């Protein structure tokens, strides 16, 4: 097996009021798109900024390309492209001037694939970025993350503001990147954004790793989603302890349940109440994912 491109080994970062990450371990392999999921504030951005040495871990060890992320950061960053989650550009400069500036800082003689990327993304190279829409500024950020053909691309919520057509172009860009055995670390708060491009996903919640699985593996966790509406809401624990049944959510008289075992015990349990409406269907991947999140946080 190839040496991992990114390796987090029991990394903890605590700071101030903002939530950090706690005892996080995972590996990203060469040539894969690694989906890094979690709700806003779960620690995704913290994780990314740690691997770029913008933040320093409280404890634990981070390696990128097998190099220590702290001491060898400059070497690492020469081979990484980064799109920040909250992209800030120099308002008065154009996209071309941004490319030129970062090319200079990176010690490159030309704009690399910058112009080709701009054509693909339909980006105007010669307008000051303050005059661009949010989506177009995001394209500038993408061009800056990819133009120097980095071995690792780190993208923090990259599709924010991109229209669906551009999203397709973006997915194609990711595929070409991994076709060259280059690696993509892709963070998002929605599974739908990464499930078509990523082979493996990790999910964090409240700074801890909740899940690390292949997209395929997630699918096998599929269940039936049962939505029942009652005349009078059942007691909060009405569906506890039934084999294969888990309550997902509850609003007014409607209870949503995940069923992964036999149907009969649930039907018997429902029959004890007056049911006004009943609906059930196969859960899609997003449901599976959300259900995983609704499991209580494990307390160590």
């Amino acid at each position: 097996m190839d040496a991992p491109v990114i390796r987090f080994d029991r990394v903890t970062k605590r700071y101030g009021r903002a939530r950090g990450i706690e005892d996080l371990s995972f590996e990203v392999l060469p040539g894969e798109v690694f989906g890094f999921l979690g709700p806003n504030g779960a620690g995704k951005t913290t994780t990314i900024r740690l691997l770029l040495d913008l933040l320093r871990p409280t404890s634990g060890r981070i390696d990128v390309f097998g190099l220590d992320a702290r001491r060898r950061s400059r070497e690492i960053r020469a081979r990484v492209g980064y799109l920040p989650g909250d992209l800030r550009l120099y308002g008065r400069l154009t996209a071309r001037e941004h490319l030129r500036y970062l090319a200079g800082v990176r010690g490159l003689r030309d704009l690399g694939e910058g112009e080709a990327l701009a054509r693909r993304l339909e980006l105007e190279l010669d307008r000051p970025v303050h005059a661009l829409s949010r989506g177009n500024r995001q394209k500038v950020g993408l061009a800056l993350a990819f133009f120097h053909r980095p071995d690792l691309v780190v993208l923090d919520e990259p599709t924010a503001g991109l229209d669906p057509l551009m999203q397709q172009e973006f997915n194609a860009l990711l595929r070409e990147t991994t076709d060259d055995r280059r690696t993509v670390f892709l963070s998002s708060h929605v599974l739908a954004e990464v499930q078509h491009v990523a082979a493996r996903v990790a999910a964090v919640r409240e700074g801890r790793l909740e899940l690390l699985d292949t997209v395929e593996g997630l699918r096998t966790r599929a269940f039936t989603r049962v939505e029942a509406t009652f005349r009078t809401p059942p007691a909060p624990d009405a569906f506890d302890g039934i084999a294969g049944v888990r309550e997902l959510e509850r609003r007014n008289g409607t209870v949503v349940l995940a069923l992964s075992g036999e149907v009969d015990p649930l039907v018997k349990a429902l029959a004890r109440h007056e049911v006004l409406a009943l609906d059930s269907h196969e859960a899609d991947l997003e449901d599976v994912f959300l259900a995983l999140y609704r499991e209580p946080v494990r307390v160590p």
Partner: protein
Amino acid sequence: MFRDVALKTLRDLRRGFAWWSLGLVGLVALLVAVYPTVRDNPALSRLVKQYPDALKAFIGFGGQVDYTSAAGYLGGELFSFMAPLLLLLAAIGAGARGVAGEEEAGTLELLLSCPVTRRRFVLEKLAALTVEVTGLGAVLLVALWVGARAVPMHVSAAHLGAATGSLVLLALAYGALALLVGAATGRRTLTTAVVAALAVAAYLVAALAPLVSGLDPVKVVSPFYHYTASDPLRHGLAPVHALVLLGIAVLAGALAPLALERRDIAVA
């Protein structure tokens, strides 16, 4: 290969530099134009001589208050207050923008994702600051030299150069200090306020030291004391005072990368 950060910083300063230059040149032109009237008005000279000592302390610029000589006039009207005010504002502004400004704007995030060390980044900001402040000093010196010849004023180019040089060193010291505080805190407004407050305190200590006996021993910690102490317009720049100012700039400039090196980069 990595001088790009300094060059871009200077390019961003172009407009600001033009305005500061215009201000300095305008100030010099005004003062020089008024000089013959002041010189030839004995009543005004007598009045200035009768100023209370406290007031004289603020306009002395290291020597006697004397509006009949070119040195006394320029010291009192330009170098004791207005010129340091303008240059320090420019220098502290540039120092605070250097690290804290880019960090608050969020552009530091993108820049430090490139293979630039933080040390390199800060040192390039320091280089840009040095070029800007020195450039403003050069503009001031040329304006003074041209003005002094036009009127004419009896003050040598060497003495004008000494006074301007002392001013540039003072501004560099405070600019580097602002870079250091900005690198340590990442907050631009806070940095500007803290360093400006330090400058005002140092200015008061230096000005009041001759009048308040308790302040006299502590005046040596005030950069403003070293700025004026050699009486540069009459006696040139004494190396010891120049070296103290240079030392402050070098020390602050050397500490600034360490301050940024030690901490997390804030998100905008």
